[in-house]
């Protein structure tokens, strides 16, 4: 599969499971979008654990522009207060529209689980055709114990009442994937 095909298939499958895929040119644009989205939805706080210092500076500026509080730790105590969880995703899987998120950090896990909206930044070069194409990477992640690894495909859902599909059962109600084309 060409890179372009991978991107198209990934997008098609992610959207089929109700994720929103948006291309971004650089991390700054991603941060601006995450902050804007949060503000537009009436959120006041954005949780973003696990980012590098320089990235954080850019994110902080974006949050300030939107009048949002930015938190990076102590998420457990702030459960229910942050609207958005912003994390990186290590890989994307075209076949199923899945993002793979190394969630060994507890703060990162909480950001992606307790938020109303999960925003994940994925580098397009890390897209693969299917999970088998990622086997080696996944194996070394699993071997790096203790660890917590998540494959996420769309927002939380349930069909437990009369099989009516309802989003946002326990986890985030929305999943936004910001697809970063590096060098573009």
């Amino acid at each position, binding site marked *: 599969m060409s890179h372009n095909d991978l991107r198209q298939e990934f997008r098609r499958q992610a959207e089929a499971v109700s994720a929103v895929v948006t291309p971004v040119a650089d991390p700054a644009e991603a941060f601006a979008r995450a902050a804007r989205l949060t503000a537009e939805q009436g959120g006041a706080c954005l949780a973003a654990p696990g980012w590098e210092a320089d990235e954080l500076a850019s994110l902080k500026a974006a949050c300030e522009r939107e009048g949002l509080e930015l938190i990076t730790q102590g998420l457990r105590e702030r459960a*229910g207060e942050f609207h958005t969880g912003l994390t990186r995703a290590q890989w994307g899987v075209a076949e199923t529209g899945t993002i793979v998120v190394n969630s060994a950090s507890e703060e990162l896990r909480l950001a992606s689980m307790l938020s109303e909206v999960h925003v994940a930044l994925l580098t397009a070069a890390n897209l693969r055709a299917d999970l088998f194409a990622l086997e080696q990477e996944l194996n070394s992640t699993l071997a790096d114990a203790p660890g917590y690894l998540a494959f996420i495909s769309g927002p939380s859902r349930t069909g437990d009442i009369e099989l009516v599909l309802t989003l946002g059962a*326990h986890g985030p109600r929305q999943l936004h994937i910001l697809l970063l084309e590096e060098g573009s």
Partner: protein
Amino acid sequence: MSRASRREYHQRLKGALDNRFLGQTLARFQGNYRGSREAGFSGMDFPALAAEVGAAKDAAVGQLEELYQQFKAKAEAAGATVHLAHDAAHAREIIAGIAARTGSRRIVKSKSMTSEEIHLNRHLEAQGLQVTETDLGEWIIQLRGEGPSHMVAPAIHLSRSQVAELFTQVTGQEQDPEDIAALVEVARGRLRQAMLEADMGISGANFALASTGSIATVTNEGNARLVTTLPRVHVALVGLEKLVPDLNTALKILRLLPRSATGQLISTYVTWVTGAVECAAAGGRKDLHIVFLDNGRLALSQDPVFSQALRCVRCGSCANVCPIFGKVGGHNYGHVYIGAIGLILTYFYHGLEAAQELVNNCLNCQACKVNCPADIDLPALIKKTAGLVMAEQGRPLKNQLLRRVMTNRPLFHFLLRRAYLAQKPLAGDGRKIRHLPLFFAPDQEFRSLPVVAAEPLRDRWSRLVPPVAEPRLKVALFGGCLVDFVYPEQGEALLELIDGQNIQVDYARDQSCCGLPAAMASEEETAREVARQNLAALNAEHHDYVLTLCASCASHLKNYPKLLAGDPGWAGRAEHLAAKVIDLASFLQKEVGLEPTAAQGKAVAYHAPCHLCRGLGVHEAPKELLRDAGYDYRPYDDEEVCCGFGGSYSLDFPELSAAILERKLGQVAATGADTLVTDCPGCVLQLEGGLDHLGSPIKVRHLAQALAETKKGSEP
């Protein structure tokens, strides 16, 4: 089998059949599932992938103890504590002990069939612990004090109104049944709080990877992630059969599991936990306990036949496609484990009493088998399980009779001929019995029965079939009991179809019943004996084909090699025969080449016999032949769903046989067809009997007859 338990089971089945909401919900569920599954697997070679999963699981099941040791070493090196529970009581003790030692009082659970298997909640609650299920469906049934009615969708038997009523009670606020999103919201709010406050989270696992000591959960709601993250203690209860050697095996299973469960390409969350992960609530690292449950699995894994059951990945598909589940739901079609696999596992995990009635409730329609992502021969295992139940309880009288009669062909055929005389007063001058004396078989009024023919096919044969001097093909016809003794006209139609084709058809007089009824009654030795008699009689070695008009006979003849695998004197001949067995439609297409007939517009619907479409994999040939013969063929949704006959099933479970038949006939009537064609005399019996009972004008024809009629009609 006690009469009381049988009566009680039939009462429950009747209750379910009378529950209109349940019927509608299940029909919608199964209909939606069929479409979603098909979409999920589109473009994939399902049988090949399922065989791959089956083989991978077999390899794992063959070395459970080694995998367990390997897993334990890896997981403990990563900070987990790994336990092995020998049985249900032991597992409950271990988990209650962990709760006591860690001072856990509030427990949240994500969905785990294994915890249902050991009735864990009841035990923990009896210790004064507060247990909250967090999967929406599980929470609903927990609040109602019920068990799950489906392995994947545990509350599928309930309507939105019932859930709204329940949530109104729980919240003290009126809930709108039409606003399902709001109902989900109630659960989200309540359960989020419970998860934040809990001391201990209990999860199941879909995989345990020996290579890394990781456990994985596959879920949609996301509650399992919270249950394994928020509380300071995490207990994972895992059936030993969830052990797989490595990620590759798990990914192979994962490729099929969600597609089989719901038609999703993948579930929303697949989460892998390796060791004691970060957890602030635990003061740094999670207190992780992985409790493996044996409860008979190790013994089962050593069994040459039943180890196959441990391949199951709990997708629920075998319930989703089962016509019986579709009528009565999981509370009446399983104990804890539901659907075809439930019929098997209930005996092994929950014992004779729970299994004794359940295990007979199978049509052998093969729908579960061809949809199972682990390639488990479920109907065969169900029959073998029924055999174990029977061995424990003693053979019922009817089995003893069956054994005696079936192994003695002359006696069997004598009795069939006598049946003609016995029926005469019941049938009057017609060819149907509309009212059986009640003592003969209760609840059989949903269909009339055909009369045994005055002269069986075997007696007409020499008169009908002139010798062919230099035949281009030699065919051995296997009649089967129904064509031979009840519907000889179907055999005559075949002869009309191949008339003038220079084909020699032999009818061996020593052929007997194919033996399927014996196999269905779990009388394997009888089935083998009859098979040997037929092998000797049919002489397949001297024929190009063994042709039969009965799909059930055909698929059972094809099963002879399996049946006689351990019998060196016969296994080779069985292989030979199996390779030559062919159904009518395939034979006609391959060897006869009927002249296409001009459209004459007569509307026909088709019923695909289970043992033809799933047993032999013949789907299109009969319909192509009908179209070529000028019929206006009309499809309908359930064309490949069982008609509810299942041989003696329809005598043992008449209420279900009738309900399944009714659904089919309703769809057939809606096509506007005036003839219903099928190619199995058993299906003809059921369909014709049902239509006659309803007073429907729709005629039933065997494919041979339908084609012979147009051939005759087109002749100048």
